[in-house]
């Protein structure tokens, strides 16, 4: 918030609210709620259970210290070595005990009597404060009256945001390839995605402008979209990451065409250095200094937001644990108020156990400690990505080239083909040669590698069968014990499957090193067999 004295307040964007959002009334009970706050008031009104009856005395947890993971990308700190620790190795993990008592011992302490009572829909005050400090320091919104609001995870947050902004039947803008849960939440209202083509930095700003400028309401059957949904960092599924300049361009187009940006950014802190193969010395570690590291990350859309037209979605799912179901919005106060109403009549507050534990964890670590934790996480994911690609390179013959056109222009493309095995003639016999099986661009953020499969090289390939081949290969992999994300799941529209290409989204976030090795071995065998003989049983 360094420059807040120069910053403007958000502009009036209330015309973007959907009819549903406008129709949401403040509950009359909440109106009466204000009366409770009058000093000395006796209440026989509410139905809050007496906290004496909560059967909880305390909740405590063992939490890792914030510098548990090294920041210099050492593969030895991977999950596999963690398993070794589990089986009685001497290297014990360092943890802090955190405790949340039922009643506070000092005023301002996080306590269960408050966290487990009604009325925490806007968040425990200690959590709200932490989040607000964090957003101000890390994302640095470009206008003065931004606010934050807790929510129960980004899927819920997006489903609230889309219904707060879009009326049934409207279109919203997204990347050509996108996260299917985002499509699922709006689809029953006929609120449908319109894809914008992508390049190495995700959504293209020139294509976005073109789409908006040439929008033909009659031909499209819906008015020009006024909402843009994007996953700008470690995009799901393609793994692409958008830099500052592109974000600024897209923001400016959105100002010009009066579009609200919903920035779904779960992978923000999983930004990493470019991949470099083992024989090239491996990828670079990030700065050892966490302050410098966080300042080096691609800025959030909210940094460029001088009008308040960005609704940013953050989640603790990737940085703490998915089961926390806790996250927060950063947006202008008018939208925040309507989003709060939408939550009030459905999920209400995120769970009090999670709110209090995570608050206690974050306030124990403090802001610098949390940043250090995130820094360690990003190094972990970088090690996982590197291990995964290194292992792929052992399984296949890997060739690199510079992309010259299309979505991968300017990127280093990795192309995998069969590894010559045994006598040199073996693969020539099957006329495979160096015909590539698949190619990909190593991601610089997130959890996913987006594999483009060259189905035209499958023996007996006929145009128009790609989707069948994709599902066929997917099924073979599943039968052999490896699950990947089928590309068609992520298509923003059904007719996007391009000639001779299929896709798989593979994640390097969850499997252990041993599991990755095993899975890649199976993957290699199945892919080689499939390209040779797709119809074998």
């Amino acid at each position, binding site marked *: 918030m360094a420059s807040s004295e120069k910053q403007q307040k958000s502009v009036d964007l209330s015309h973007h609210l959907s009819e549903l*959002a406008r129709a*949401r009334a403040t509950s009359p*009970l*909440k109106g*009466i709620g204000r*009366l409770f706050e009058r000093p000395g*008031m*006796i*209440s*026989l*009104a509410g*139905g*809050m*259970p*007496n*906290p*004496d*009856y909560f059967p*909880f*005395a305390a*909740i*405590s*947890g063992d939490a890792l210290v914030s510098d548990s993971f090294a920041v210099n990308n050492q593969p030895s700190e991977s*999950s596999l070595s963690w398993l070794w620790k*589990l089986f009685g190795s001497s290297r014990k993990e360092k943890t802090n005990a955190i405790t949340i008592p039922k009643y506070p011992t000092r005023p301002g302490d996080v306590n*269960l009597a408050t966290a487990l009572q*009604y009325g925490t829909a806007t968040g425990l005050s200690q959590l709200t404060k932490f989040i607000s400090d964090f957003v101000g320091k890390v994302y640095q919104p470009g206008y003065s009256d931004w606010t934050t609001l807790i929510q*129960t995870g980004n*899927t819920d947050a997006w*489903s609230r945001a889309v219904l707060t902004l879009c009326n049934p039947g409207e279109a919203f803008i997204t990347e050509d390839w996108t996260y*299917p849960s985002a499509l*699922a939440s709006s*689809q029953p*209202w006929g609120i449908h995605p319109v894809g914008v083509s992508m390049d190495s930095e995700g959504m293209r700003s020139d294509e976005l402008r073109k789409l908006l400028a040439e929008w033909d309401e009659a031909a499209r059957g819906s008015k020009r979209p006024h909402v843009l949904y994007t996953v700008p960092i470690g995009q799901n599924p393609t793994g692409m990451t958008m830099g500052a300049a592109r974000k600024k361009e897209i923001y400016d187009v959105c100002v010009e065409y009066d579009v609200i940006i919903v920035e779904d950014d779960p992978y923000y802190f999983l930004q990493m250095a470019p991949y470099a193969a083992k024989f090239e010395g491996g990828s670079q570690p990030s700065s050892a200094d966490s302050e410098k590291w966080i300042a080096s990350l691609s800025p959030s859309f909210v940094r460029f937001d001088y009008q308040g037209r960005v609704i940013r979605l953050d989640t603790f799912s*990737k940085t703490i*644990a*998915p*089961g*926390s*179901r*806790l996250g927060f919005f950063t947006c202008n106060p008018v939208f925040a108020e309507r989003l709060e109403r939408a939550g009030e*009549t459905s*999920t*209400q507050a995120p*769970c*009090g156990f999670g709110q209090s534990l995570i608050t206690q*964890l974050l306030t124990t670590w403090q802001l610098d400690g949390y940043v250090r934790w995130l820094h360690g996480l990003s190094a*972990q994911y970088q090690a996982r990505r590197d291990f995964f690609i290194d292992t792929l390179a052992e399984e296949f013959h890997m060739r690199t080239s510079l992309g010259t056109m299309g979505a991968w222009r300017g990127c280093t493309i990795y192309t995998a083909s069969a590894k010559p095995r045994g006598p040199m003639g073996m693969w020539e016999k099957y006329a495979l040669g160096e015909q590539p099986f698949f190619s990909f661009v190593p991601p610089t953020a*997130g959890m996913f590698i987006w594999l483009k499969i060259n189905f035209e090289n499958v023996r007996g390939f006929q145009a128009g069968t790609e989707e069948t081949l994709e599902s066929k290969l997917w099924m073979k992999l*599943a039968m052999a*014990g*490896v*699950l*990947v*994300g089928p590309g068609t799941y992520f298509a923003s529209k059904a007719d996007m499957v391009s000639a001779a290409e299929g896709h798989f989204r*593979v994640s390097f*976030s*969850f*499997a252990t090193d041993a599991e*990755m090795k095993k899975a890649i071995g199976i993957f290699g065998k199945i892919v080689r067999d499939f390209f040779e003989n797709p119809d074998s049983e």
Partner: protein
Amino acid sequence: MTFILSDEVSQVDLSHHLSSEARMRRPNPMKAIWKLTRRKPNMVSLANGDPHFSLYPIRRIEYEMASVEEADPVAAWRQAGPSAASTKLVSSTYEPCALPLQTGLQYSHGAGLPDAQRVVTELTKFYHSPLDHMCTLALGNSDGIAKCFRLLGEPGDHFLADEFSFSSITNVPLSQGIKWASVKMDDGGIIPEDLEKVLTNWNPERGRRPHVLYIVPCGQNPTGSTLSVERRRQIYEISQRFDLMIIEDDPYYYLQYAPLSAPTTDFSTPFVPSLLSMDVDGRVLRVDSFSKIMAPGMRLGWITSSALFHEHLVTYTDGSTHHPHGFGQMLITELLSGPNGWQIEGFDRWVRSLRAEYHRRRALFLSLFEREVASTGFAHAAVPEAGMFVWIRVALEKHPRYRADLRHVPGANRQGPRTNGAALMDELFERCLDAGLVIMPASIFALPEEDKFADTEDPVQDRMNYLRATFAGTEEAMEQGLAILGQTLREFFASADPPKQLEL
């Protein structure tokens, strides 16, 4: 993995009750993969973006909870303070437990984690023994009800409910385009004959006949009324005849009390059978919650429904809220099935002990009410058989400015209210506030209904002479609050002249 409560399968197809929104929902494809990963033991999944559990900063969570070893655990818990006997439930990455932390904090699918789903299924079976139903976890009671509304409601539909209902719930579907049609109630709750009358005399100009009944059968909010078994049977029978779906919202089920004359609610006092337990067709969606019996901030509840509605609830959950948080799921799994947990038997002891505790609070409230308020002769409290609320009738007919002839004065609206009760109650509410008491007026619970179709024979405005009070608060609040109420009523009933600010 699914858990069916019984092998008997109902035969009635109720799929026509689904909203078009629900029919249009497609299952979230990522969740289909998630299910596959659970099917084969040696599957390696590279499909989902789940962080590896070694990257969670939390390794172990310990919930220190009341012990239920005592005969009357709630009383013991309250009285002993910090020295009360407790039990420690642990969910951990490296210790044996019912639901390990690394599973509890992962993504799962909309019905909840299989272990957590299993324990609520067993709990439901223990209390209701329903035929052929399944449980879906929800993020608390309001989330569960909101999901049921979305599952069944078509814009323009009317849902049926008590004419006085909890407005935080009845507001929920309004933005979805749902309207309400009210059914009259008496001390025993919703009147089955009136329900039948509303359905029989339905005016098609309002839209299609209602197909959803929203009901709070125990300790109804705000009236505190509880439906007798006989009324429940009648309501179920009417629902079958008129093809209604019933949303049974029952947060106060465990707080059912013996008559006031009994010294306590004995542990053996039975619970009134739920509508779910009578449901042979699969037309009941029952919503349960831990809010009132454990703590509201847990934000964990569950919906019990037929398999058809379960499937649709799961699909909706996967595309909106996702499954409930892991913390609560780990807790209930440890609590109801873990090595140090209460188990269902201990849970039952806790809730029966809790209702004995609330029985004492009810008795205290009503004796204070007798002394401070009923003694004025201007108000009367109905004795609630369940829940936390007392519905207080104010004897407005004794007020010097009470009028029952509003329709007969020259130029009056012949369809309007007969009495000035609503205005007098507003005045009483203001006077209470001025005296330092917040108490809920009936008017804020009146079901929002379109004026055009309101009951002109017997308008609800003439039945607004009630207040809702709670005995869930502290004893001091009850004592002081009821004293203020008694004093305010005395002054109010002595005021022959209207207060200045309310003059018309």
